[in-house]
């Protein structure tokens, strides 16, 4: 190496980012994980302040502290913030930090994608909160029910910021989840079979899969709302043939599984904390892991329990009621596993364990009121009252947030190298137990008094002022508890007791390295022969593998690129599926005014152009084969042909669009036109994105940067390209051939 090169490298080292900038530039999963958690804490404070303002307004009857407009904006932003800027990032953060450590990996599968996923979040959050500066923050509720959220009833730009912010954050969340899936599947250390991963890892794998399937319905709904608001379609406008209920269906197909996106990580954390502080393995690993998988499978079948009051009809109500009762079993029965884990254990009542125990009790309350709501007639009385507010805060604060606090006290030493103060931790615990129960327990009774949700004020009805006063007053304890936590963190970072590698005598691999871990995580790994490798190492006489055999590691790890590509197209497939559902819903009626698929579309011509698109899958396959065989000229030839065929297809689309526009068939003309342009437009967008990826590969290939070593990522692009073609087959069958028309 020449001296010049050496000095240049030193230069680079000097110029490599330092201080705060090093956090921005980092692709280390631990730093990104902490960024996620810090972002969540920041927005927990923001969303908490919004809640405080809401409770001040509701403390007394006929209060005028907030205007109705501002109150409505605040509860909308409170819900949106807590779901998308606290719940999503805090768990992605812990997952990011812990999953690679727990499986003995150096980093996540795609470190740079990981950084992108994170930075989408503050960007989306900025868009969302920028709406306040326009003077009109979103005010249609976090659920944004159409038609209230459509242009006709909501002129301000708030909803538009909300839509764009959610789409941006959603892209980040899906990318982050795909990363976790690929990490768990592909990067496990030798010996770590899928049946041996810590429960935290298994459940977070389920949660990541759930994110991948649950966010697309929201994106479909947001896409429709965009087209509705900006291009004057009428998806949600009954007077023009639209449906006021379609939004609710799409939203809750996302919205209910989203509850499990929060509940699963809470289970994941509790399933690590309780065994360690009981000095016992989890009771019934298979049941806890398996029931989390069952939740994933059932979660798509319960959405309409949010809609019992809309008058869906008896059959639908009973079906969704029964499904909801069913999903309560894998959710609720785990309580017995955690209790059985504690049973006969040596229990250490650390702050972390206290929060975990409070989680058990409070989550049971939230779960039991959930059973009440699953009974349709009870829901008919209590839905949209303060009873439901109490119910889901018991699940989301009493359950989920308490689990997060347990996790903070448990993993803080690993992340920082210092212990949090236990005495302050217990102060925070009791302040939160009192504050949380004081605020939300009384809200059950307010519901029975007939107080609806989302009212900015109320008349001085008997009892309302007292209970609302108690509810509002108790918030002070939660605020104080939070300040204790912040002080504890600040103080402990400077003066906390050094943690050492494994302060809790814990079981899993993150404790087998230093606190905090070095950049590449491990110097060496203990042998992995069971589910608790560190326990086995530290207590060889009681080692798990001596008494309980777990399936060994066959060594199989799928390709990262393929795992990523397949997860991505599952998500995309659901997005298109719901757009096609919207098409079918709005195009089954024979007597619509204006253009229809029969009158406006030239099926034969589009069939010819479709053949070009489908042929491109064949040429792509030939290109991939040539690349693997190392025949670069052939590879470039077939890749060029693929791009050309794709362009021909898009030209056909453009021709068709031009013809339709010339006949005055525009997106706002009628519901056929709106759904047609929405579905084919989004498909065209995907083809274009695929072409860009192919063009980049072509350019790289031309410059001889693509060799058979790049066959894997190229294959991943192939999965996407074939997927776009398959989607088109369904689009063509649905729209052009009308196979779903009666």
């Amino acid at each position, binding site marked *: 190496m020449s001296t010049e090169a050496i000095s240049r490298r030193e230069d680079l080292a000097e110029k490599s980012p330092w201080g705060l900038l090093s956090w921005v530039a980092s692709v280390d999963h631990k730093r990104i994980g902490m960024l996620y958690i810090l972002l969540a804490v920041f927005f927990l404070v923001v969303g908490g302040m919004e809640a405080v303002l809401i409770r001040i307004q509701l403390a007394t009857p006929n209060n005028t502290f907030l205007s109705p407009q501002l109150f409505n904006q605040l509860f909308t932003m409170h819900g949106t913030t807590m779901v998308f800027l606290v719940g999503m990032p805090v768990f992605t953060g812990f997952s990011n930090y812990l999953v690679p450590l727990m499986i003995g990996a150096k980093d996540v599968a795609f470190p740079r994608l990981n950084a992108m996923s994170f930075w989408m979040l503050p960007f989306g959050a900025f868009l969302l909160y920028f709406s306040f500066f326009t003077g009109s923050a979103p005010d249609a509720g976090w659920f944004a029910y159409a038609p209230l959220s459509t242009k006709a009833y909501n002129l301000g730009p708030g909803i538009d910021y909300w839509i764009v912010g959610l789409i941006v954050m959603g892209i980040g969340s899906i990318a982050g989840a795909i990363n976790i899936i690929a990490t768990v599947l592909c990067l496990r250390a030798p010996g770590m079979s899928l049946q041996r991963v810590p429960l935290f890892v298994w459940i977070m794998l389920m949660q990541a899969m759930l994110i991948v399937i649950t966010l697309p319905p929201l994106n479909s709904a947001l896409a429709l709302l965009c087209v509705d608001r900006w291009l004057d379609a009428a998806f949600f406008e009954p007077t023009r043939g639209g449906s006021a209920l379609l939004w609710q269906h799409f939203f809750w197909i996302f919205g209910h599984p989203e509850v499990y996106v929060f509940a699963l990580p809470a289970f994941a954390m509790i399933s690590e904390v309780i065994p360690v502080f009981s*000095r016992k393995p989890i009771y019934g690993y298979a049941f806890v892991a398996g029931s989390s998988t069952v939740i994933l499978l059932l979660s798509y079948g319960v959405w309409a329990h949010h809609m019992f009051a809309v008058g869906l009809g008896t059959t639908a109500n009973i079906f969704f009621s029964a499904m909801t009762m069913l999903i309560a079993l894998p959710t609720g029965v785990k309580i017995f596993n955690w209790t059985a884990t504690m049973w006969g254990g040596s229990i250490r009542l650390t702050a972390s364990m206290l929060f975990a125990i409070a989680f058990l009790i409070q989550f049971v309350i939230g779960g039991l009121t959930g059973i009440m709501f699953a009974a349709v007639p009870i829901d008919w009385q209590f839905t949209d009252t303060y009873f439901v507010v109490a119910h889901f805060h018991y699940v989301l604060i009493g359950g989920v947030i308490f689990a997060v606090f347990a996790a903070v006290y448990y993993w803080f030493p690993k992340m920082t190298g210092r212990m949090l103060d236990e005495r302050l931790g217990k102060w925070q615990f009791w302040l939160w137990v009192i504050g949380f129960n004081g605020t939300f327990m009384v809200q059950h009774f307010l519901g029975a008094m007939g107080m609806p949700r989302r009212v900015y004020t109320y008349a001085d009805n008997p009892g309302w002022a007292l209970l609302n006063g108690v509810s509002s007053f108790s918030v002070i304890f939660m605020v104080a508890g939070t300040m204790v936590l912040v002080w504890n963190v600040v103080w402990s970072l400077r003066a906390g007791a050094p943690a050492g590698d494994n302060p809790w005598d814990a079981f899993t691999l993150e404790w087998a390295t230093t606190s905090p871990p070095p950049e590449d995580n491990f110097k060496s790994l203990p042998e992995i022969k069971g589910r608790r490798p560190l326990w086995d190492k530290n207590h060889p006489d009681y080692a798990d593998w001596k008494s309980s055999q777990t399936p060994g590691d066959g060594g199989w790890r799928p390709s990262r690129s393929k795992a990523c590509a397949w997860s991505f197209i599952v998500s995309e497939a659901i997005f298109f599926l719901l757009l096609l559902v919207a098409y079918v819903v709005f195009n089954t009626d024979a007597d619509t005014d204006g253009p229809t698929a029969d009158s406006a579309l030239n099926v034969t011509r589009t069939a010819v152009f479709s053949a070009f698109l489908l042929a491109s899958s064949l040429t792509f396959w030939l290109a991939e084969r040539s690349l693997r065989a190392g025949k670069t000229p052939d590879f470039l030839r077939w890749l060029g042909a693929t791009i050309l065929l794709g362009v021909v297809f898009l030209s056909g689309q453009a021709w068709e669009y031009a013809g339709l526009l010339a006949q005055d068939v525009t997106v706002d003309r009628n519901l056929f036109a709106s759904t047609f342009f929405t579905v084919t437009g989004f498909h065209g967008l995907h083809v274009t994105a695929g072409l860009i990826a192919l063009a980049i590969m072509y350019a790289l290939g031309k410059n001889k940067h693509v060799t058979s070593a790049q066959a894997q990522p190229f294959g991943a692009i192939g999965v996407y390209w074939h997927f776009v073609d398959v989607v088109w087959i369904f689009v063509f069958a649905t729209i052009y051939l009308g196979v779903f028309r009666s």
Partner: protein
Amino acid sequence: MFPVFQPESPQAQAIYDLFVVVLLISSAIFAIVSGLVAVAIWRGRKFADMPKQDFGSHRAELYWMIGPVIIVLWIAAISAYLVLTINAVPAVHPAGDDAPEYDLTVTGHQWWWEVRHNDSGITGANEIYIPAGKKVRVRVRSADVIHSFWVPQLARKIDAIPGRNNYVWLEAAEPGVYEGRCSEYCGTQHAWMNFEVYALSEEDFAKWQDSNSPDRKSPPGTDPDALAGERLFFAHTCANCHAIRGTSATASIGPDLTHLASRKDLGGGVIANSAENLRRWLKNPQDVKPGSKMPNFNLNDEQVRQIAAYLESLD
């Protein structure tokens, strides 16, 4: 104080009974779980020895699954049975036992309720008069966004959805006044979209019907203020949104004002209906109910007094 726990109709009673059953079961489960947790902590409070490393037993898990499975299936069954038997969604053209004895249409607006008595043609706003002891079928509709129609003591809640007809039974066992509220968030003034159901005895209801009959013409007023107010009412485009029976005002964008003077509240419950409050409302509705669809007409005090006098005469 607790309308949900004080049912006054067969339907609300049946739902309350189901609630009590589920509440008792839930309390028992809660007591068992927290008892087990407490005992486990008590037994394991001394952190000393090495506990037995117990990985679990499928048999134990199977046993403790049995209870919860039976419980949730049983709750699902009794609630499904109730859904089927309380006949919560009346048929559109019911016959026999299901035939309504009285028929109403209620339409949710931002932020008030339009009431129409289908047989007599009587219309009103925010106050629903029904005959006590009769099965009243209410068709629930919406003129704009989604609302929800809820009278906790009398019936389940049912959403008012634009483009759809929903039906619900109202059946008050005894004469009385029952509070109702909109319980689906519907925009700025969702909080003030309250209404009352007045269940009247047969005799009182007949009287009410008679005095509200669309055929009855109220005698022309003589109060000069009221007459001036009447002229202003039509000159200031009030009639573009409001209806007053027997006049040329027939619009239904805002509440029907035919018997305004007899109403308990104004603006969906935001203020009591008194002469002074009515003047306050007319002076600037946006001050009383910010965001309300009624604009501030910038009337002077004289005009406010005259229009109020006219509306006060409508009893």
